[in-house]
């Protein structure tokens, strides 16, 4: 496959970036998108050009690092995948592929396609945890009976890998799907209910402080989420937040 790549290049956080065009030839349809990026970087290094910086780690759809906005969609033109799970067979010979970093005020660009998603870490630190008694007499979590439906929903919410595709996709750069998944995975379980009030208040407050946009229920986040996190979680977080606010 011969491809034309239009890639966002930005030397650092303060530099003014721009799209650069690169020609790729003999790209195998069996390559993953990141392997194609590796080949591009090898070619750039051979030409003495600074390689394209992009995040990646596990390359098997677990870590959520590969934050690329490909042809106008987070993680490219496929569903329920991260960029590393996208294969070049999804494109046609002669295609032009536009590659940009995830865009949001709360996700500033570090370099090229890498963005700083530590705002997610700060939201998580604000309440995305359960305080555990470490006295040595900790009760076995399995000793508490939990409704199967609640357990399943909590597990579904907990599959969120915090990749930021929801923010990147949302026309408002809202982080509601991510935060609601983190709130839900605890709110549904008895262990999480103890700190539920503080958790949802603190996490939503931190989300607002980070400068994410407001949710307008377009549903784009759910469609582009590599783990299929449901909008049901946002409704749950809205309920939790309202209840916590009224409770004080």
């Amino acid at each position, binding site marked *: 496959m011969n491809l034309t790549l*239009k890639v*966002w290049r930005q030397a650092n956080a303060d530099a003014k970036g721009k*799209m650069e065009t690169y020609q790729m030839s003999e790209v195998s349809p069996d390559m993953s998108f990141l392997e194609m990026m590796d080949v591009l970087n090898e070619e750039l290094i051979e030409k003495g050009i600074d390689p394209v910086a992009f995040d990646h780690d596990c390359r098997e759809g677990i870590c959520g690092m590969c934050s690329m*906005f490909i*042809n*106008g*969609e987070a993680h490219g*033109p496929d569903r329920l995948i991260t960029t590393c799970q996208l294969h070049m067979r999804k494109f046609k010979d002669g295609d032009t592929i*536009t590659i*940009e970093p995830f*865009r*949001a*005020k*709360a996700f500033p*660009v570090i370099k090229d396609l890498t963005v700083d998603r530590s705002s997610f870490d700060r939201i998580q630190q604000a309440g995305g945890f359960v305080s555990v008694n470490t006295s040595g007499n900790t009760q076995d979590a399995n000793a508490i009976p939990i409704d199967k439906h609640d357990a399943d929903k909590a597990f579904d919410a907990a599959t969120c890998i915090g990749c930021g595709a929801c923010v990147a*996709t949302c*026309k*408002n*750069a*809202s982080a509601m799907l991510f935060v609601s998944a983190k709130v839900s995975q605890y709110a549904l379980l008895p262990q999480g209910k103890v700190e539920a009030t503080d958790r949802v*208040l603190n996490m*939503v*407050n931190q*989300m*607002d402080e980070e*400068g*994410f*946009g*407001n*949710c*307008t*229920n*377009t*549903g*784009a986040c759910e*469609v*582009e989420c590599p783990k299929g996190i449901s*909008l*049901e979680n*946002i*409704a*749950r*977080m*809205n*309920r939790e*937040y*309202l209840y916590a*606010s*009224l409770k004080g």
Partner: protein
Amino acid sequence: MTLIASSIGRKLTMALSGLFLVIFLTQHFAINITSVFSPSLFNEISHFMGNNPLVQFIFQPILILGVLFHFTMGFVLELQNWKSRAVKYKSYKGGANAPWVSRNMILSGAVILSFLALHFYDFWVPEMNYKYVEVLPLDSERYFEELIHKFESPVRVGIYLLSFIFLALHLYHGFASSFQTVGVNNKYSQTIKSITIAFSIVIPIGFVFIALFHHLTAF
């Protein structure tokens, strides 16, 4: 952070004010449709609504405040959302994962707001002038005549028709979306969606029918 200052709190106020306006719209349609089959009943109800102190001095100000709040908050949130992505994408396929109506509520809202300005100029301003500026004598028979007079102009009817298309689009997303915002996403969500689709079609078409009916029967 207080509830109203939070992003979820503000969305909640948008949802609640929107649902309030949906109730008003239903009531408005129920009254207007009487003009099609019974001018006397339309006059009677309009006279009651126009002269009842509870409606005039309690409900009407609440309604105006509700409208002002809904569109002011809508613009405030849109501005915040705009700032949340300072650098825009070169390529953005919004249609790949969300319907046009849900992504363009500010546009459909702005068209409805422009229509409201015309609607106030057409009906509310003359009504206020009649009752509180010129203080003309009570006339319980004037409402139907005033109504059909407004729909003589094909341009005005055309503007009404266009506006109600945007109202339909706004309702199509907004109605069901309000329930998601207040935390309802469960086994009733499909029913809510079905009611939303029916409401967003029936009410705007009903208003367009009323305008066209009076336009065509005026000659």
